[in-house]
């Protein structure tokens, strides 16, 4: 990174902190300086807490052996929860997606985090994300009856969904593979919707009594 903040009058420790903040996404030189000066004003205990938290996410968090979500243990809390439905797995691209789906409270099954999507132009193929782990899971757990593919609705997400469908449908008979419904988001105006969204919204229309 260009040492834009490397001003001679600043102590090296402060410069180093500014450069560290700049490594974070969305943080430019001005924000990095602001954060560094705010850190200076904090008490030693507060700074210690922040630095320990930062270190903890690298030393204490691992990936769940089963679903590949972040976890402090070999298996994450969701996988260990006996009240959840073992027969249905929702496949998402990132662990942030698990958070969003969990927040909705609408899904009571288990998850599988792929850690990305197929993006051939960036050199990310099926072997670079955790599809192999999903296949192993489906093969090894007979109780799994349905896979809900919740990858993003862009070309990479669609390619990932199609690939998973192609691979899993040949691996296990009677496995139901579904995709999240596509349509208009709540609070949106039809006037501004793109043609693809309208097409899917009409194609996936439901009886008004069945809608949530």
């Amino acid at each position, binding site marked *: 990174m260009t040492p834009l903040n490397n001003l001679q009058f600043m102590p090296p420790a402060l410069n180093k902190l500014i450069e560290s903040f700049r490594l974070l996404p969305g943080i430019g030189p001005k924000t990095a300086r602001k954060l560094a000066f705010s850190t200076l004003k904090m008490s030693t205990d507060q700074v210690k807490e922040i630095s320990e938290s930062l270190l903890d996410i690298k030393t204490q968090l691992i990936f769940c052996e089963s679903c590949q979500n972040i976890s402090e243990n070999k298996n994450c809390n969701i996988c260990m929860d006996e009240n959840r439905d073992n027969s249905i797995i929702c496949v998402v691209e990132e662990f942030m997606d698990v958070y969003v789906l969990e927040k909705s409270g609408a899904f009571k099954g288990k998850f599988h985090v792929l850690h990305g999507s*197929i993006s*051939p*132009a*960036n*050199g990310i*193929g*099926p072997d670079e994300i955790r599809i192999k782990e999903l296949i192993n899971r489906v093969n090894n757990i007979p109780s799994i009856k349905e896979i809900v593919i919740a990858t993003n*609705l*862009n*070309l*990479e997400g*669609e*390619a990932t969904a*199609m*690939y998973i469908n*192609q691979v899993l449908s040949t691996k296990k008979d009677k496995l139901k593979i579904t995709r999240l419904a596509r349509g208009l988001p709540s609070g949106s105006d039809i006037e501004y*919707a*793109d*043609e*693809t*969204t309208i*097409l899917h919204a009409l194609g996936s229309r439901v009886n008004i009594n069945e809608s949530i």
Partner: protein
Amino acid sequence: MGGHIDVMSKVNAYISLGENLSNLSQVEIIDNYSLLKKDLSVISIGFYLLELCEKFSVENDPNNDIYEHLSLTLDLLLSSSNKNILIRWFEINLLIISGFLPELYTCLISGEKLSEGDHLFSSINGGLVDKKFATSTDNYILMDKNSIKSLRFLSNNSWSDVEKIKIPNNSLEKLRIVMRKYIQAITNSQINSEKFLSKVS
């Protein structure tokens, strides 16, 4: 606006040019190739074509010929019965548009007209070399006369003529290797999406 600006969509975009940052104010879809996006093997070809166009394009330098060539090829992708021939036709024409048409008629070393028969393809120098003039320093690819004929035909004809011909699988495979090596040599990089294309097609 996200749905309008997905990869592999032809759009009319209204951009207000700014001094530092430009502002995308409106987008209107012309064609989002929804039928192509229903087939994984076709999507993989789409990814490949797009990556090639990106490799042969320069930032902030619009290239209408490449755009038109890509647009035509995407339109042909669904209807073409032999997608491998279409990919090879796309590649050789992209090379022509970009000024990298390989020399297919004259020996690159001797400058003499090549006789009908097998010759060597030099991806570093961009064309055919008569076997008797080959040097030990170049990593040549041996091309049989049918593969050479096919490559010449693809470079000289429009798709309406190309789609009528049949190219044997071994010649098509040879053309794939020649094109891959030559494009790698020109762009000085790997074409990442090729691996996925081979995996799903």
